[in-house]
């Protein structure tokens, strides 16, 4: 049983107009076996939270802590976090020209496990996982994400999730841009990984659609860099009906501005 604990997290980025605070005191605790959904309008800081947990250099933590079973995650480099068991399925996976998927997957698996996987089992595992996610076998010969469609990139992220077996998976809008068939395939992959019982999941999404396939235990609503409401799965149903508007009305001036900006974007 592991615990990922985020306490009073403040995060800012440097922009041309100066420093901008995006997360304004976020607290969240996820345990093995739990699925947490983070929902919120565009620009509310959901993806910033995901990237900050993974350690993207663009985001500066100005206050608060992130710990994994008591270990200071913020003190770890990006690769150390991954080896400690954190996995970020990215919203926009980048193409890495010239690096084949085969080479990449094996290198990453070796780094995470601390030893090279047995070649025979590994090849079999990769093939099986790819088949379940309906990824063509020839993808292993292609370069990482190069020329993949949006849906293919997302499926390949989930392929990595299934192969690397992290302790905590953070899915950053994995559902956006997917058609319903791809959404099902991807959700099944996440559910398979979750069913093994050794993983906690943080599911970041703009839409409630994916929650029909992946059942959250907790739902947190993000507005303007803060959690404004928390609850069980029923909260997602309510969001489905009412949208995010009521948060903007009830919250302070700053969040109304954020909601307005989001509406324009």
């Amino acid at each position, binding site marked *: 049983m592991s615990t990922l604990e985020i306490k009073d997290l403040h995060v800012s980025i440097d922009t041309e107009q100066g420093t901008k605070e995006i997360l304004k005191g976020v607290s969240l605790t996820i345990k093995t076996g739990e699925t947490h959904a983070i929902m919120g309008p565009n620009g509310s800081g959901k993806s910033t939270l995901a990237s900050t947990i993974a350690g993207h*250099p663009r985001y500066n933590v100005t206050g608060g802590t992130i710990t994994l079973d008591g270990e200071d995650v913020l003190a770890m480099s990006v690769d150390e976090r*991954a080896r400690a068991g954190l996995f970020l399925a990215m919203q926009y*996976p980048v193409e*890495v*020209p010239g690096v084949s998927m085969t080479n990449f997957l094996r290198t990453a698996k070796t780094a995470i496990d601390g030893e090279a996987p047995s070649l025979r089992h590994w090849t079999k595992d990769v093939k099986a996982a790819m088949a379940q996610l309906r990824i063509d076998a020839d993808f292993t010969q292609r370069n990482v994400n190069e020329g993949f469609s949006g849906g293919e990139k997302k499926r390949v992220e989930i392929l*990595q999730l299934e192969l690397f077996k992290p302790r905590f998976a953070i899915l950053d809008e994995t559902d956006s841009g997917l058609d319903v068939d791809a959404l099902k395939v991807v959700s099944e992959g996440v559910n398979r990984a979750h069913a093994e019982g050794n993983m906690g999941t943080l599911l970041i999404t703009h839409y409630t659609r994916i929650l029909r396939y992946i059942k959250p235990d907790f739902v947190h609503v993000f507005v303007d860099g803060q959690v404004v409401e928390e609850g069980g799965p029923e909260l997602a149903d309510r969001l489905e009906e009412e949208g995010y508007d009521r948060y903007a009305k009830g919250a302070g001036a700053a969040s109304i501005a954020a909601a307005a900006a989001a509406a324009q974007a």
Partner: protein
Amino acid sequence: MTDITTEKARIGAPSAQPFINGFTEEGESLSPINSAESKAPLAGASAKSHSHGGGVGIPDSSRAGRLTSYNLADFKPLTGMEEDWRFTPLKRLRGLHTDALTGTAPEVLVTAPLGVLVETVDRNDKRIGSAAIPEDRVSANAWENFTEATVITVPAEAQVTDEISVLITGQGTEASAQHIVIEAKKFSKAVVVLDHQGTAVVSQNVEILVGDGADLTVISLQEWHDDSVHASSQQAKLGRDAKFKHIVVSLGGDLVRMTPSARFTATGAEVELLGLYFADAGQHLEQRLFVDHSVANCKSNVLYKGALQGKNAHTVWVGDVLIRKEAEGTDTYEANRNLVLTDGARADSVPNLEIETGLIEGAGHASATGRFDDEHLFYLMARGISEEVARRLVVRGFLNEIIQKIKVPALEERLTAAVERELAATNN
């Protein structure tokens, strides 16, 4: 000539001339320098004064106007101010541009499958000069001084599956001259690897003839010792529907200057010019290529990629592509990418595209020189891969794009290993 007029003349803009001289019915402007006498330098009845006295036109304005001659005396001594020498440290040429090249030429050892003809001939052989004509003083110096040449002939319709290996081993630091002729006769198919090793100071001319419908790949691999100086003019002449792939791989040597070129003599031909170079501290690796589209409906594609690391590592890439008035239906693209791995390295990149007709399929050029892409690094590191390994993967990946196109498995493995050694040298 001022910079501005040079530039205008180069792109053939009408404003370089008084009024609208040079306009045609297509509305495209033609540089008057080329309009009347425009013919490929080696194509049939050349209008250029090709063997004596240099070419027509204005030097340094259009690539077509460059002086070409078999006579060393036609080329003025180099000052380093010349457009095509301005990046080259002449002091490090070790006399290739000034001295008689009387040193022992690198030894040539050809291993060829049955059916391929390998000959050593004297300089009066009629095939000498059939594909190339020197375009600079160093090349002309080699032409003046070489004593014998190696001629490799792939007979008509021969399909040679194993590569033809040409091991070229340097014989020391005395300035020398070398001449090689490669001819793929019509409908033949072959791969030739020029494998440069050891220590040499050499100016080399390689003539390449690709016959009608032939498919030839020439790979020039420079893995010289650190004290070597190598200038190589590799000129190809293509027949109708010929396919030519040329790959430069420069890794070793103090100064390596490659000048590959491709000339079309009939329609339907395709060239692919690829290059990979990896410069370490103090190395100067230069590549200047020329694709001369002088006939209609030919294709060319150029991609050179380089990595640099260490103090005073210097690479130069200049890509000249000329689409002449008569080369309608041309399709061409050239690109150069450089990855600078450390401070103190310098990459010069100059893509030049001259277009004298608008009736083409496509023409493009691109160049980018940069450091690591942080997003690539982040993606790999977010999968547990350490920064050191991630950087190595990215560089390997960057250069692999060229290696993957070689399609000779043994050579691909060897080059991958060579790139690994380069990377290991500075822990990148």
